[in-house]
Structures are given as C-alpha cells and as structure tokens.
C-alpha cells in the first residue's frame, strides 16, 4: 500500500469517528426542524416547534431557573476560583503545595458529589431550592475556573508584579491594574466554561433542588418530558441548549488560548 493509500484509509477512519460522534447530534438538530414532528418521516422544513417551545410555560420557567443558577454560580465560582488559583500559585512559589485537594471536585463522580451535597444540606436542615443548586454548582465550577486560571498562571511573568511595586503601586493597585487585566482572558474563559457546565448539569441539580416543581432546571424539565416520549419540542430545546454550549465553549477556548501566548 502506497503513501496515498495509507492516507485514504486514515481519512476514512477519521470520517467514521466523526460520523459516530456527530450523527446522533445532527439527527436531533435535523428533527427539530421537521414539520411533521415524527422521527420516521420528513415532511418539510419548519420552525413551528421552536414556536411551541416559547409557548410552553413549564419550559420557560425551567429555562429561567437554569439561567439564574448558571449566572449566580458562575459569578461566585469565578471570583472564588480566581482567588484560589492565585493563592495556590503564590503558595507554590513559596514551596507549599495543596494542588490535589482543589481538583477533587473535578474528579469525584457527579453522583457521589450529588449524594454528599444532599446529605450535607439535609444535615444542616436547609430548605432546598435554587440557592442549594447554585451552591452545589459552585462546588464543582470552582475547581474548573481554578484550573483554567492556574494554566494561565503557569506562563504568567511575575516580574511585572515586582515592576509595578517598583514603580510605586500598592498591592491593591497592582492587583487591579496589572494582575487582573493580564489574567482577564483566562478568567473569562473559566467563567464561560463554568456557565456551560452549569447550564446542562443534571444529576447534582436533581438531588439538591428539593421537592416540588418550583426549582426545576432545564435538564430536569427535559428529563421529565422524555418519560412520555421524545416530542419534537425536546429536539428544538436540545438544539438551543447545544448552540448555547457550543458558542460558550468556543469563546472560552479562544480566550484561554490567547491568555497563554507569552508576551
């Protein structure tokens, strides 16, 4: 087999892998535009299911909840995660390490974390709702934001912090005028990642939302709808969630790549 032949076989394998990964997703996206609404027959292009979606109060309510949880947990975990990353890096530079502890929430299975948080909230007799979901999301988002910011800190030139002090800046001024702007792309990338993770998180939200439908989130709403069969509305909803995630992730990757470029 010549070089051309090898190349063609490899191309074929790549094609198959991508087909395996993306055909199910494209089916969902395709069906969301199917006028008839049945997965068995294509009856023409239509956006009617998106319209029906907007008329469904349950879904809108759940989407609102998801947005609240995602925004709140992103905000809190971005601030805390950035400070944590800086703190750990400063300690590491002084020779103390506590790295493994931080990344535990990234590695522990979601179901374990979910049960742990549920038990914890019950133990404290906390009434569960959106606030407990938010807190639970902060737990794992914190680790992700921290790891993204830490990656940027690996290439961070600490001499600019000394230069700032040398030029007469206090530590606070140095933080806001030098450290924060230089790390901004990485922090934003971490925030976008956290937002994406929070939007489609199901297990932990399911365990920590408490009884009743008032604090149901979008993934939980989809789950409850699916028990009565996949409706075309769900396809439309999945497509929207997918688009939001893809956009946020793309932005996040662009930003974190930019922050890693040495200056």
């Amino acid at each position: 087999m010549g070089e051309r032949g090898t190349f063609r076989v490899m191309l074929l394998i790549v094609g198959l892998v991508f087909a395996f990964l993306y055909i199910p997703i494209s089916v969902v996206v395709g069906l969301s535009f199917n006028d008839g609404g049945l997965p068995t027959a294509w009856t023409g292009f239509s956006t009617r299911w998106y319209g029906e979606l907007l008329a469904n109060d349950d879904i809108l309510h759940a989407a609102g909840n998801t947005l609240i949880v995602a925004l709140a947990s992103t905000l809190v975990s971005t601030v805390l995660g950035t400070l944590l990353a800086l703190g750990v890096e400063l300690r590491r530079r002084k020779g103390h390490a506590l790295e493994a502890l931080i990344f535990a929430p990234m590695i522990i299975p979601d179901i374990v974390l979910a049960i742990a948080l549920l038990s914890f909230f019950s133990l404290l007799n906390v009434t569960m709702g959106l606030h407990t979901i938010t807190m639970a999301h902060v737990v794992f988002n914190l680790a992700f934001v921290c790891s993204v910011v830490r990656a940027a800190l690996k290439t961070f030139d600490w001499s600019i912090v000394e230069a700032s002090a040398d030029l007469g800046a206090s530590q606070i001024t140095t933080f806001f005028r030098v450290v924060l702007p230089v790390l901004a792309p990485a922090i934003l990338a971490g925030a976008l990642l956290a937002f994406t993770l929070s939007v489609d998180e199901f297990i932990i939200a399911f365990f920590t939302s408490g009884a009743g439908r008032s604090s149901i989130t979008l993934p939980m709403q989809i789950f409850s709808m699916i028990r009565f069969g996949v409706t075309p509305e769900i396809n439309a909803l999945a497509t929207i969630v997918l688009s939001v995630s893809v956009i946020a992730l793309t932005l996040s990757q662009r930003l974190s790549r930019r922050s890693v470029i040495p200056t």
Partner: protein
Amino acid sequence: MTALLELRDVRCDFGAVRAVDSVSLDIAENEFFALLGASGSGKTTLLRMLAGFQKPTSGAILLDGKDISPLPPERRPVNLMFQSYALFPHMSVRQNVSYGLEMDRLPKAEIAARVGEILETVQLSDLAERKPEQLSGGQRQRVALARALVKRPRLLLLDEPLGALDKKLRGAMQLELKRLQHEVGITFIVVTHDQEEALVMADRIAILDKGRLVQCGPPREIYERPATRFAADFIGTMNFLPISANSGGLTLATGEPLKSNEPAPNGPSVAAIRPERLRLHEAGDDNRLDGTVRARAYHGLDLQIHVETAAAPDPVIVRITADVADRITLAIGDPITLGWSARDTRIFET
C-alpha cells in the same frame, strides 16, 4: 566625595547559604557603577536588596544618609530596570511609561509632558501607541529604561540591561546608556556578568565573588592592578606562571629569573602577565621565556598566539598587534622567545 548610597556591612542569608557577605560600598552621586560577578556571586541579590525586594539579614543601606532597608519597593526613590524588562503586556508603550507617574498622582498635564519628553530621549515617540509584543528586543529595552527613568529616581538599578540583546546592538547600547546617564544625571548601578560591558560603561566597578566584595575601583585600576588572583583571572585574559622564591629572588619553573616591581611573596605564588604586555623578546627586556608556537588565531586588530612553554601547564597567550604581525612570520611549531617588563608583572600568592 559625598556618598549618595552607602552599604554598611550588608549581609543576606538564604537558609544556610550566605548570598551576600559583609559588603560595604560607597557610591557617589552621578556615578555609573557596575556590580560585576559570575552567576551566584550575589550581585543580583545585592541589587534586589537595593530595590527593596529582598531584606538584608543584617547591615544598613543608606540613601542620602537615611536607612532605607525597612522601606518596601514602592516607597523607595529607587527604580529597577528588570532583566526581562517586565513590561506590562496589556499596556501600550505610553501607558507603560506613564504608570509610575500615575502612581505618584501627578497632574495629567505633567505626566503627559514628562512621558513625551522621555520617549523623545529614548527615541520611541513614533512607537508610543504600540504594545510591547509589537516591539523588537532593543525597543523593549528602551521602553523599560524610559519607564524607570521617567520617575527621576535618586538611583537607577539595571539588572543585566543588555543581556537580551545581540552582540552588535549591545555594543551600541553600551555607549547609548552612558550617554543617557550623562544626559539625565541619575546615578546608575548596573549588574552584569560581562566584564567587557563593565569596563566600557562604568566609572567604577565592584567585583563580587561568592557574596564577597573582591575589589572596587575604576576600570583601568581593576584591569591593570587586580587585587587578587580571582580578579586577575575574571577580568580580561591573564597568563599565570607558577614561581618559586629563594635567596636569589624569584624564578620561573624554567629556572629563568623573574623580575617584578611588587614585593616578594611568602609561600607559593604565581606571576600574572596580560597577553598584550608580552612581546617578541628584545635586548634589554626584564624577563624572557622560551617556547613553541602551538596555535595562532587572527582577530583583525591583533594576532593571538598560543605558546607552549615549560613555565606553565597551560599555553601562554600572546597578543601581537597587526603592524608587528605583518613584519614577522610565525608558523605553528616555530620556536619563539617572549619578553616583558618587570612593571607589567603582578605577583599573587596561591
């Protein structure tokens, strides 16, 4: 000479390692001073103590007679130009240079005027709106310099200021730095491992070795009258010939007598002679040494010859100026007799 900066018995320990050991120095107003040493000699630690990033373990650092060692970096009238330049990557050249003056809360108009002026001085006015990543190495170096100079510090510290530049640019910048220092009238302290750089730029040089001050003086004195064997070896090229002392005076390992104007040593010693002080032996030379040419290297200005002798294990290096080299033929393997004066012979005990 009233000292601008006075170091009194300054010491700095890192755990069990003594990085700087009892250094005392006076540096005058308007001086261009070089701290010269190999890596690990403590020169950078000394600089960081002056800037305030490192606390001395003991001793005092007096600036205009006041002890500044308790002050943090941001409260010292001292600025440092970092080896990596440490420019703020998210700010333009102008913003980088303005930063220090903004920290001093000067009026906007004054900041603009002073920044414009210093950018003019370092010839960066055209690049004021660029970001550091859009600049060449030499341009970044000038931004770093402007950023430190614009604060009009009492003392400007420069950490290997030319280290990141290529050789040709370095030569030009050495003279440029000297010109700038003269123009702004600020005391410069340069840390460098490059002895040539120190000789060219500095009014005075301090040589550091293992945290200790070996010698301090003007370049000519450092070069011509090194205080120790280390200083002699560190600055320029030096030939060392082991000698022995007996009742008849000093003799080389070849048995030839050695004449020097320096006092006779006690114990084992070496004679040290600069390559450019050696010549082809002439009648009337105080000292002579026979050998064989082992290698020759043409350097444009002069011809360097390595001569194998019985006087030393290492070949003796001789520099013959171009006009002399033109008149003689020296092939590898030829016998050669070297001569030099007693006053060009240093003696160091080993």
